[in-house]
């Protein structure tokens, strides 16, 4: 066995927010070996990003981090190390790539200068490293400024910049979340290749188990700041030992998931208020919790299901969990009427781009070319395409927010369609209570009246939100609750057409599955037609009756979801399907 690159022992981190200390990481121990890829999986708030930052010594100073335990990177102890030890470690030993490559690049420096800055001693040529990451025309890229590059190119540049320093450890924090599936597949392939070739250990932080499965050798499952399960990736995927890992695996959906019934989800949301010193922090959500789960904190012990370790008192029960899942009631049959809720004929739209000249008008760049699409009453159509394909513009035209340059838009209903935006938190006004915002569509009725409050309460119950939250501000609620509030506002007066703009793209698996279930339920119960814009073909297949594929502003394909996936007609759809990550090793289908 080779020497470990990174040895983390009993790492704990306490951060103070507004003077209140909270333990974000607790008792984290693991080793990494050269060339090994470890996936760090967990939902938002589980502490996975904090691990990445702690390993780089970059926890924000205003949180007054108190770090305990030990981090040995290439034999150097970093906990309590002096400033220049950390600086030299960051320069030579540990590098990171992030979710937002634009934010990590200096907008005023060419790629060449930034790469030279990043690594002064290396002999390797910049062009050589750029081409190693699969960038075509490295000369041009090296002399370009970051804003000239696409998102995928920027991420490759960051990878080249990080790998050029030949670090022992690369921390990749959700590096592909902002990218399209096809681009994601390429970046994952590149990371795997580099880890092997450079013998760099990669800590891959993600909330997406299928992405992790297609890349990593081992996996650490993190819950509420503790490792609840660790083991070989394929072992954990095949026979999860912790109920949380089992729940995460069951909640993920792919092109083979059963779309006739609700998706399995994790029970409720995370509650922060548990006495973690003497309880399993997952006990409040755990389907197999027993009384002793709230009395003893389970230690990480060898698992019986695989060769790894698990922190659960009753882990031998976990394997019975997956058997219970399959018998959810199927969705009731949906009647789709012949009348169209929305009919777009030959819709076209162009935006002016490029530099503004003083004399002439700017050259209009077509975003949508002659789109003809109709959504029948009660039908759900998913619009799939990569970023820049014109999906959002089409949705905004359907909503009446953007006026098309050519073609006609006809809606069945006089009531304007309602829209669910991508970021539920940003779609709520921070200084108004949830009840006030939901009740805004009942304009004739005052919210102070009993009738108004009752209607708002009913709408909240409909979307699964406790009416007690009526007087809460958005900042006091979780992302999932905000998403429900946004939906309650949309359906308090049920529209005939609901437009959803990437409503699940920023969510972790469990929340995404919950949201898909809620949308499927609402559209059937309230008999709404729906346009569901997404870049995720699997989500589209689960929710929609028909899938329309948009490429460069034109519809290339529209058909029944399973027909499209079984026999994609266009090359573009084929590449989308091929790039879907799956739980099988090697990725792709």
């Amino acid at each position, binding site marked *: 066995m080779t020497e470990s690159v990174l040895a983390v022992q009993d790492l704990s981190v306490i951060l103070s927010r507004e003077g209140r200390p909270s333990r974000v990481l607790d008792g984290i121990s693991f080793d990494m070996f050269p060339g090994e890829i470890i996936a760090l999986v967990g939902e938002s708030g589980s502490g996975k990003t904090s691990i990445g930052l702690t390993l780089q010594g970059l926890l924000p100073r205003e949180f007054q981090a108190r770090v305990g335990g030990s981090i040995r990177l290439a034999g150097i102890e970093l906990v309590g190390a002096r400033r220049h030890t950390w600086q030299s470690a960051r320069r030579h030993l540990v590098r990171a790539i992030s979710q937002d490559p634009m934010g990590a690049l200096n907008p005023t420096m060419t790629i060449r200068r930034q790469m030279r800055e990043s690594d002064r001693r290396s002999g390797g040529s910049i062009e050589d490293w750029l081409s190693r990451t699969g960038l075509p025309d490295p000369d041009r890229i090296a002399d370009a400024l970051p804003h000239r590059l696409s998102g995928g190119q920027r991420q490759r540049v960051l990878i080249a910049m990080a790998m050029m320093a030949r670090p022992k450890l690369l921390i990749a924090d959700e590096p592909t979340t902002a990218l399209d599936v096809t681009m994601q597949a390429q970046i994952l392939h590149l990371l795997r290749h580099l880890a092997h070739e450079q013998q760099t250990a990669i800590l891959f932080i993600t909330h997406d188990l299928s992405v992790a499965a297609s890349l990593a050798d081992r996996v650490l499952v993190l819950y509420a700041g503790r490792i609840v399960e660790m083991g070989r990736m394929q072992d954990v995927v095949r026979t999860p030992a912790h109920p949380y890992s089992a729940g995460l695996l069951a909640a993920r959906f792919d092109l083979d998931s059963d779309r006739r019934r609700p998706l399995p989800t994790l029970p409720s949301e995370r509650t922060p*208020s548990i006495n973690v010193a003497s309880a399993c922090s997952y006990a409040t959500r755990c389907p197999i919790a027993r009384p002793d789960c709230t009395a003893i904190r389970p230690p990480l012990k060898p698992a019986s299901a695989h060769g790894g370790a698990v922190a659960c008192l009753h882990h031998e029960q976990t394997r019975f969990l997956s058997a219970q899942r399959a018998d959810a009631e199927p969705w009731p049959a949906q009647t789709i009427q012949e009348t169209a809720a929305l009919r777009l004929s030959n819709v076209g739209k162009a935006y002016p781009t490029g530099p503004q000249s003083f004399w002439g008008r700017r050259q209009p760049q077509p975003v949508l070319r002659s789109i003809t699409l109709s959504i029948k009453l009660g039908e759900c159509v998913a619009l799939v395409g990569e970023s820049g394909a014109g999906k959002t513009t089409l949705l905004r035209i359907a909503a009446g927010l953007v006026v098309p340059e050519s073609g006609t838009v006809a809606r069945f209903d006089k009531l304007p369609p309602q829209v669910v935006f991508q970021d539920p938190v940003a779609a709520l006004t921070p200084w108004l209570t949830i009840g006030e915002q939901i009740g805004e569509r009942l304009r004739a009725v005052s919210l102070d009246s009993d009738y108004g409050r009752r209607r708002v309460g009913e709408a909240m119950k409909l979307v699964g939100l406790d009416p007690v939250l009526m007087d*809460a501000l958005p900042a006091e609620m979780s992302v999932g609750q905000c998403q429900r509030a946004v939906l309650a506002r949309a359906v308090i007066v049920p529209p005939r057409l609901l437009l959803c703009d990437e409503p699940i793209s920023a969510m972790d698996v469990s929340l995404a599955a919950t949201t898909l279930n809620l949308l499927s339920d609402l559209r059937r119960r309230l008999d709404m037609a729906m346009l569901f814009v997404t870049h995720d073909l699997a989500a589209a297949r689960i929710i929609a009756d028909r899938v329309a594929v948009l490429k460069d502003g034109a519809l290339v394909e529209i058909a029944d979801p399973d027909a499209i996936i079984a026999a994609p007609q266009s090359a573009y759809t084929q590449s989308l399907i091929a790039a879907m990550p799956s739980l099988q090793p090697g990725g792709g289908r």
Partner: protein
Amino acid sequence: MTGRPSPDTLPARPRFNWRDFFRRAGWLGSFGIVGLSVVTLVAVLAPWITPFDPQLRVAGAYLPPSAGHWFGTDEIGRDLFSRVILGVQNTWLPALAVIASSLVIGSLVGLISGLLGGKVDLVIERIVDLFLVLPGTLIALAVVASLGPGLVNTMMALAVVWWMWYARISRDEIRRLKARPHVEAARIAGVRGSRLLLRYLLPGVVPALLIGASLDVANVTMTLSLMSFLGLGLPAPAPELGAMTSRTLDSLTVHWWLPILPAAIIFLLCLLANLAGDGIRAALRGA
């Protein structure tokens, strides 16, 4: 499973809390805010709290600062400390008035510009640009010169050249908010007109305006003092800090306290105002 609150119970509502406010403002900012509140109180209560009548001869002329007369006495034996307290009133309250009127005028113009957009915005913004490139203090001097000296005229003249910044701030904030998803979502929910403005836009503009105003107080105080220094504020016998400094400047080497102490108070006022402005900014941004 006892003692565990259910996930949907509502946490205690964080109403406005002075302790949080001052913690976010930091100790320097809190010092500025408290100091400025005291100054405002002194300014309002000035006629009642002066130890001596500021208009009357109460001791010998040119007495240096002492226990009986903290700031000494002036050329005809009036108590300088009492005159400075009244001077604070004559400097500080007009400064607040100038800020308040600029705030009202400017934010109204900015709201119209930001809300209507298009051609109206273009025209209004060019007018604002025009005012911004003019040398403000000089214009104010010219206005006072043509209207005649006096406190009201000085204040009007200052307000004329001071409102543009507030117009800019409120216009930019409105335009920023209009593009935010939550305002768009409210519009899709059917909120229009004054309801959209009052409930969804204005509450987002107010913090920026407050921050701008609190950082601006010191500038106005300085300019007002400058204009009084140049003889364009209150007429001669009334105590005003800038005017007191200017009238006694030639005795600096002989009776140093006469120009220095009023000037020091101007300096202190501006320092407090800037600290308070920073504090308010930190507190509101953090909220």
